[in-house]
């Protein structure tokens, strides 16, 4: 550098003046260190003050290692429409065309990690020995899916090809089937599960557990008598945020809960069960009488076959399809059981397509023993996200993939801290984001913003896992160990009876009561 002339004079002997001038800004660092220390101390004080008396576990549950040793469990898949293939994927089986399309997706966009996640998904030591669907196209797809044991796209070589059955009874009778996955229309769930249990097959059954009240009792009785391992398909049971929510309740952080609000907010044809109709579907490829089963007879209808959720004849409507997920989450968090009373109202306000089930529904469940009410509010024609909220006297909690707890501005428990400004009711006092290492007492508005959108930590640290995979894995582990899965027959009974009470209240236009002693809906 050329501009050192001035300093060069002092180079041989740096004067005191030089040093003072040169070092003039060093004290700023001291001020900075002091400010930084004060700030840290303040943050820590607030955190400790909020976390006082709150004992939440701060670590994530590790994904348990599957008990996949020993003999392969041989699966039979019943029903391969929309949900069937998703469950098969969670068990490790995906149709080669789907594998190929995910692979292409990953090649085109490096952010698309679905292919890698599927390839890395743990091998559960199962095989598909039999499949059943009454639509021949789906049956063939199920067979090819089960035969894709190498998880291949292009270059797929079918191996250990599963047998196709047109009749589920034959699949259940097959001695090469140890366990069945039922993903059929609602009106078939309990029938199939009862027969499978009688044949000694373990069962993973999609929700809702039953179509009618009567079946619910029969299925519970049969499962208890036969002792087969039964898992109901509420994969939300594997959601880590729900376990944390349970800890929040157990630690009485939001005080006594008096109101729960759960919602459904959808606004697409698929969301309203107007599913596409397959071009190859016709009376020749669909075994129509086997679809109808014990439902009232109706002449062949492609709409009814593919969009069966729109008709009470085969469906349980919003209650069975969507309330059940919300209810089961709350049953998991709060252990509510069956409500004492239910009232409903609603109607077919948007989808004037001949359906018989409502597209807007409100149901209120009352729990006398807990002094609380649960409101279910659903629309299939607006997607404003309203979330799940548990409200107590001292605060409220929003539950989703993340969890946020806010103090109530009029809380008794937090009155002092609110007054002193230690707690700000507009900011969460606790937040938990899945995959994040620890529970945070105070989060910034920004962090909160991302947490709500599930954007944070998605690509970092721990693996992202499919909850359905974990749910299937738990079921298979229990088959091997003889333990009971989380969404067992008793939780299924709670779920089905609750949903039926909501439906009956709507259809009969009356308040429906549950007689706890005699276990009867009155």
């Amino acid at each position, binding site marked *: 550098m050329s501009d050192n002339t001035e300093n060069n004079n002092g180079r041989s002997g740096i004067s005191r003046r030089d040093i003072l001038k040169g070092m003039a800004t060093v004290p700023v660092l001291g001020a900075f260190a002091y400010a930084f220390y004060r700030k840290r101390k303040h943050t820590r004080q607030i955190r400790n003050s909020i976390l006082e008396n709150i004992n939440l576990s701060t670590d994530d549950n590790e994904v348990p290692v599957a008990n996949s040793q020993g003999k392969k469990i041989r699966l039979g898949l019943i029903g391969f429409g929309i949900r069937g293939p998703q469950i098969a994927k969670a068990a490790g089986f995906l149709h080669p065309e789907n594998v190929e399309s995910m692979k292409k997706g990953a090649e085109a966009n490096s952010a698309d990690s679905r292919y890698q996640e599927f390839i890395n998904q743990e091998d559960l030591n199962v095989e598909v020995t039999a499949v059943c669907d009454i639509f021949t196209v789906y049956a063939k797809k199920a067979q090819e899916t089960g035969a894709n044991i190498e998880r291949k796209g292009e270059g797929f070589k079918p191996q250990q090809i599963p047998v196709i059955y047109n009749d589920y009874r034959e699949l259940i009778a097959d001695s090469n089937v140890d366990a069945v996955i039922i993903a059929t229309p609602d009106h078939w769930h309990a029938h199939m599960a009862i027969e499978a249990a009688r044949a000694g097959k373990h069962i993973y059954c999609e929700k809702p557990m039953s179509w009618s009240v009567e079946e619910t009792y029969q299925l519970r009785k049969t499962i208890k008598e036969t002792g087969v391992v039964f898992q109901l398909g509420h994969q939300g049971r594997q959601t880590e945020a729900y376990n944390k929510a349970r800890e929040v309740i157990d630690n009485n952080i939001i005080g006594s809960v008096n109101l729960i609000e759960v919602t459904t907010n959808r606004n697409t044809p698929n969301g309203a069960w107007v599913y596409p109709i397959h071009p190859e579907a016709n009376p020749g490829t669909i075994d129509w009488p086997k679809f109808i089963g014990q439902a009232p007879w109706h002449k062949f209808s492609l709409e009814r076959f593919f969009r069966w959720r729109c008709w009470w004849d085969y469906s349980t409507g919003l209650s069975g399809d969507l309330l059940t997920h919300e209810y089961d989450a709350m049953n998991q968090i709060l252990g509510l059981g069956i409500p004492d009373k239910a009232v409903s109202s609603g109607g077919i306000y948007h989808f004037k397509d001949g359906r018989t089930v409502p597209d807007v529904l409100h149901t209120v469940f009352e729990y006398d023993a807990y002094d609380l009410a649960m409101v279910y509010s659903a629309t299939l024609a607006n997607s404003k996200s309203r979330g799940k909220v548990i409200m107590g006297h001292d605060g409220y909690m929003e539950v989703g993939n993340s969890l946020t707890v806010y103090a109530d501005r009029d809380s008794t428990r937090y009155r002092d801290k609110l007054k002193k400004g230690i707690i700000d009711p507009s900011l969460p006092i606790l937040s938990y984001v899945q995959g994040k290492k620890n529970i*945070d007492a105070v989060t910034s508005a920004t962090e909160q*913003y991302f947490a709500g959108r599930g954007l944070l930590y*998605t690509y970092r640290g721990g693996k992202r896992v499919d909850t359905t995979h974990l749910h299937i894995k738990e079921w298979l582990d229990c088959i091997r160990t003889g333990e009971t899965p989380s969404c067992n027959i008793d939780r299924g009974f709670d779920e089905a009876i609750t949903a039926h009470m909501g439906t009956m209240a709507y259809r009969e236009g009356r308040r429906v009561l549950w007689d706890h002693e005699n276990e009867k809906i009155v």
Partner: protein
Amino acid sequence: MTGKTNYSNSQLTLLVVLRVLIGWHFLYEGLSKLVNPDWSSVAFLLDSKGVFSSLFSSLATNPNVLKIVDFMNIWGLILIGLGLILGLFTRISIIAGIALLGIYYLSHPPMVGFSFSVPSEGSYLWVNKNLIELAALSVLLVFPTWKKTGIDRFIF
């Protein structure tokens, strides 16, 4: 550069104050990220808009690259901050600071039609505080105050 560093006292003082303030800002931005075990640039990168958005997003999707980006960002901010306050390796600190602010600006340019997940605390059109801080650093680059006030005085 001409080599003339004969500023008036007030010129020198105010330029040094500006340097120290920007240094303080960098240092705290870096340290606050360092002490937060959950901090990551992932959300910021994924939220990028504009011509370079795919480049920034791609940094976020590779966990190993992300680790390097986070490390360099945190320590870059801290070292630049220290450099500016102390007047130590000031020239290179200022250049690095300009580069870092340039990256922030390009990843989240306040252009018409872009909206970001993190709402900014002010109102900006084309010009935002990153750009102004960048310009301020550029000014400091051509007024080498470190030759008078800074540890560099003894080194260079």
